[in-house]
């Protein structure tokens, strides 16, 4: 007979978002456990609801396979004394193997006789092995763990019951005061406890008790029910997969139903209506075939359709109360002007160690204007950018954003339009928060993109200057995410700027215009440079650029996000070139020797009259050619120019003694090499590259 095993952990309601990861984890742990225990099986089917995680494992082996092996012990001369009596070592060894000295045999290993015991380990029966599922259960980890009652044990929620059935037999174990049994629990209200005769009838018996334990089946039921409602009413319902997943893990017996709200609330912006329905109530919103929002919603009850009208009315009432609030805010907010809100930002602190929100906007105006000019915006665009930067945080003090914080920016855009701002300004207000997550959407408009990087750069500058610098996992103001946002936006827009000189410049401009905070920002520029470099490195890693390459291009002489990224890509592209290794070896040789001198960049004039051989002149001419316009080319072209110097460099080194006794000659040569080294460092510190033969 095939062995089938059922394991069910009954719990108080698990958080919806934890259900699926947890059942996957349980399956993996059980699989690993059975493998480690050498118990074969055919399949593991999972079941999961808010109140249970269960596995149904089919066709388990009856027992572990037996093991026959010879175990090597001490050498014969240690195992027996001169008289041939067993020593303590021999007795100890055999006992340790569960045998006696009678079982000892001798075998020759490389010319020496050793003690051996032939061991037969009988495989343990599967029912005994399965008691180890206790550890599988208790080893589970969850994003949030809790204690309850008098116990110190932590779990996702209190464990209420355990079912462990091998065929028709209970596999006994106990966790805290819960002992395994054959009784599972039905739906909290519709069902009752039910005794399982064997592991195989689990799903069927639970269905009788109003529990659809198979999560996929349940999701399919919900999908079909919602589709039917949509069809019957000629609606379109966007089955948002995340919401569907969440709703699925909030119910054991789903019944979808439709509700409505008053037409008058449709005056509220769609985003507000959708947030109220989706995020707050876990409702699906409803549109007509053209995608226009309708005053209806669809939700899913955890139960059957008995007295469904109560549930519909209750949910309608709750939504109406929320929408009434939203409507109130929407109307109240429009009674004030943007200027009123901006004025109020003078009293809202950005951070008490830094400044008010109003002052932040003042600083961001300076930064964004600087970028706007640098990136070649038109006069009209610069005008919109200026306006956007003057007001872009105003919605923070509106009632709507006070109530629905997640709508910051979105409401700013709406209210800006209602107040007669241009579309470009309105759009930039909502875009400046982007990207909202590591891989979130980027701002599209130029104005929005500049506002976004200016806002983020200001936060980084001021928080660093106020001593709130991220360290380890401690980054409460998400400055890393903001720096990553800057890297992604400028990369997307292909906007080149030198970070250090830009920071110096905007600090100077802020001081000139009397909007700089009373903080030492200049002192943090080098720390910010390193901070941004780390984010560029991360960005390149995510692109699949070799680690040493991303390291090299972020260790060069200047931080220019777009150029550094391009350098990384160029080096990655060339890393498969036939002569890549040779090129890099030549260049890094230059770098290393150049370090023996210390010449500033304005002290690099090479004197041809001091040349002693042709290779010096050849290199000098080649470098002069390569250096012409070098810093305004693409990273790819720069690399090609450097690579083109390879032969001249090699010949030069063969023919020339750099560290000549004559100081003049030596310095002349070191200047030449430093010039090349500086060109190399513009691209990146190529000495960090790992080139294997």
């Amino acid at each position, binding site marked *: 007979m095939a062995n089938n095993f059922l394991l069910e952990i009954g719990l*108080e*309601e698990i958080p919806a978002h934890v259900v699926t990861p947890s059942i996957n984890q349980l399956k993996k742990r059980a699989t690993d456990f059975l493998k480690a225990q050498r118990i074969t099986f055919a399949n593991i089917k999972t079941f999961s609801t808010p109140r249970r995680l269960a596995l149904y494992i089919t066709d388990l082996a009856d027992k572990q396979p037996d093991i026959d092996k010879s175990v090597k012990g001490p050498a014969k001369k240690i195992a027996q004394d001169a008289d041939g009596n067993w020593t303590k070592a021999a007795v100890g060894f055999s006992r340790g193997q569960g045998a006696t000295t009678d079982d000892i045999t001798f075998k020759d290993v490389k010319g020496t006789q050793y003690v051996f015991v032939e061991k037969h380990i009988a495989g343990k029966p599967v029912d005994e092995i399965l008691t180890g599922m206790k550890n599988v259960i208790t080893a589970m980890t969850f994003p949030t763990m*809790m204690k309850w009652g*008098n116990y110190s044990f932590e779990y996702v929620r*209190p464990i209420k019951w355990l079912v462990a059935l091998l065929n028709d037999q209970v596999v006994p174990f106990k966790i805290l005061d819960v002992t395994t049994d054959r009784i599972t629990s039905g739906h909290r209200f519709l069902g009752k406890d039910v005794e399982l005769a064997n592991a195989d009838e689990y799903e069927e018996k639970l269905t009788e008790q109003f529990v659809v334990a198979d999560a996929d089946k349940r999701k399919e039921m919900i999908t079909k029910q919602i589709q039917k409602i949509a069809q019957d009413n000629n609606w379109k319902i966007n089955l948002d997969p995340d919401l569907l997943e969440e709703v699925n893990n909030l119910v054991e017996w789903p019944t979808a139903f439709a509700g409505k709200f008053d037409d008058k609330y449709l005056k509220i912006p769609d985003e507000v209506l959708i947030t109220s329905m989706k995020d707050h109530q876990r409702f699906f919103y409803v549109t007509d075939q053209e995608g226009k929002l309708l005053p209806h919603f669809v939700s899913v*009850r955890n139960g059957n359709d008995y*007295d469904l009208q*109560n549930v519909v009315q209750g949910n309608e009432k*709750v939504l109406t109360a929320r929408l009434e609030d939203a409507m109130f805010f929407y109307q109240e907010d429009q009674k004030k002007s943007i200027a009123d809100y901006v004025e109020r930002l003078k009293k809202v602190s950005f951070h008490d*160690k830094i400044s008010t929100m109003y002052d932040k906007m003042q600083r961001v105006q300076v930064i964004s204007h600087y970028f706007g000019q640098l990136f070649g915006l038109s006069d009209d665009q610069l005008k919109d950018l200026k306006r956007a930067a003057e007001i872009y945080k105003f919605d923070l003090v509106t009632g709507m954003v006070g109530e629905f914080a997640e709508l910051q920016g979105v409401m700013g855009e709406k209210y800006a339009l209602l107040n007669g701002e241009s579309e470009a300004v309105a759009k930039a207000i909502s875009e400046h928060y982007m990207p909202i997550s590591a891989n979130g959407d980027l701002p599209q408009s130029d104005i929005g993109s500049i506002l976004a990087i200016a806002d983020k750069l200001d936060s980084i500058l001021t928080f660093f200057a106020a001593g709130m610098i991220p360290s380890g996992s401690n980054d409460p103001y998400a400055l890393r995410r903001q720096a990553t946002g800057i890297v992604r936006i400028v990369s997307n827009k292909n906007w080149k700027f030198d970070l250090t000189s830009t920071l110096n410049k905007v600090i100077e401009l802020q001081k000139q215009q009397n909007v700089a905070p009373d903080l030492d920002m200049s002192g943090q520029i080098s720390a910010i440079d390193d901070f941004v470099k780390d984010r560029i490195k991360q960005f390149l890693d995510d692109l699949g650029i070799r680690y040493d390459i991303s390291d090299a291009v972020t260790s060069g002489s200047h931080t220019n996000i777009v150029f550094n990224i391009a350098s990384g890509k160029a080096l990655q592209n060339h890393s498969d070139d036939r002569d890549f290794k040779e090129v890099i070896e030549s260049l890094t040789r230059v770098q290393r020797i150049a370090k023996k001198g210390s010449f500033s960049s304005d002290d690099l004039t090479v004197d041809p009259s001091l040349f002693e051989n042709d290779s010096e002149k050849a290199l000098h001419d080649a470098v002069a050619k390569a250096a012409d316009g070098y810093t305004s080319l693409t990273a790819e072209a720069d690399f090609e120019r450097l690579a083109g110097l390879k032969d001249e460099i090699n010949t030069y080194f063969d023919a020339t003694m750099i560290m000549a006794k004559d100081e003049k000659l030596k310095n002349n040569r070191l200047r030449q090499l430093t010039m090349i080294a500086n060109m190399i460092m513009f691209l990146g510190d190529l000495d960090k590259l790992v080139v294997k033969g």
Partner: protein
Amino acid sequence: MTEKLSVQEIILRLQKYWAAQGCMLMQAYDTEKGAGTMSPYTFLRAIGPEPWNAAYVEPSRRPADGRYGENPNRLYQHHQFQVIMKPSPENIQELYLNSLKELGINPLEHDIRFVEDNWENPSMGCAGVGWEVWLDGMEITQFTYFQIVGGLEMDPVASEITYGLERLSSYIQNVNSVFDLEWSDDVLYGDIFKEPEYEHSKYSFEVSDQEMLLKHFNEYEHEAKRLLDQSLVHPAYDYILKCSHTFNLLDARGAVSVTERAGYLSRIRNLARRVAKEFVAARKRRGFPLIKDEKKRQELLKDETEEK
């Protein structure tokens, strides 16, 4: 549909029910506070090894939620029905669901769900794991297993059930505005509370004296520290509650910026942590009298002498 109960009848039924489950019926605590949790009958009593089972109605003031009595669901002061049981009973969810039946709410006629909501009160150094309970989509109860209170880990763990009485009553009486609730058979909620709602909102948002409040906050904090230095736990706790309420008034007035909040909250949190420790120490000195298992009591007391 459910039987129409007055607000006071709902309170009476809940009291009767929870008293039958072994809870002491306490009275509301007489210092302003934002939630039933902050009553010493929960905050302090949740801490330490002694068992504690109590239920009480707590008027809770949240100045920033005031709406001049114009919003049907938002209030400066609402009423919580608070149940605290330590250690958390094994069947606490069932006990709770049965309490709803006492109020005439038959789960089969509704949709009742436990939706994850991990509760946190950073200013009091508290965190817990649990749910909000939804009745047909409406949050009617906060259900929490305390994990940390006043910065101290729970051992044993207390379970807290907080019913929002206005919400629950609105549902049971099927009214759209709390002001239409029948408090007793012939007096409406609005008749009692509409005027104070307006006046307190007006005060909190427009009239309160920021200078005075700031001064009081500093004085209350100072007094709480002074009392803590002398191990006067309960008077110190009263001043911490006053700090908290004064902060809430300042906050409602818009006198506290988003980032300054953190500073005030951490000042209150430091006090809450100190009072939590002092409370346990004081109970130790009393010999943990609420522990009836003599062997366990002696063990706990022994532990302490060894620690010292």
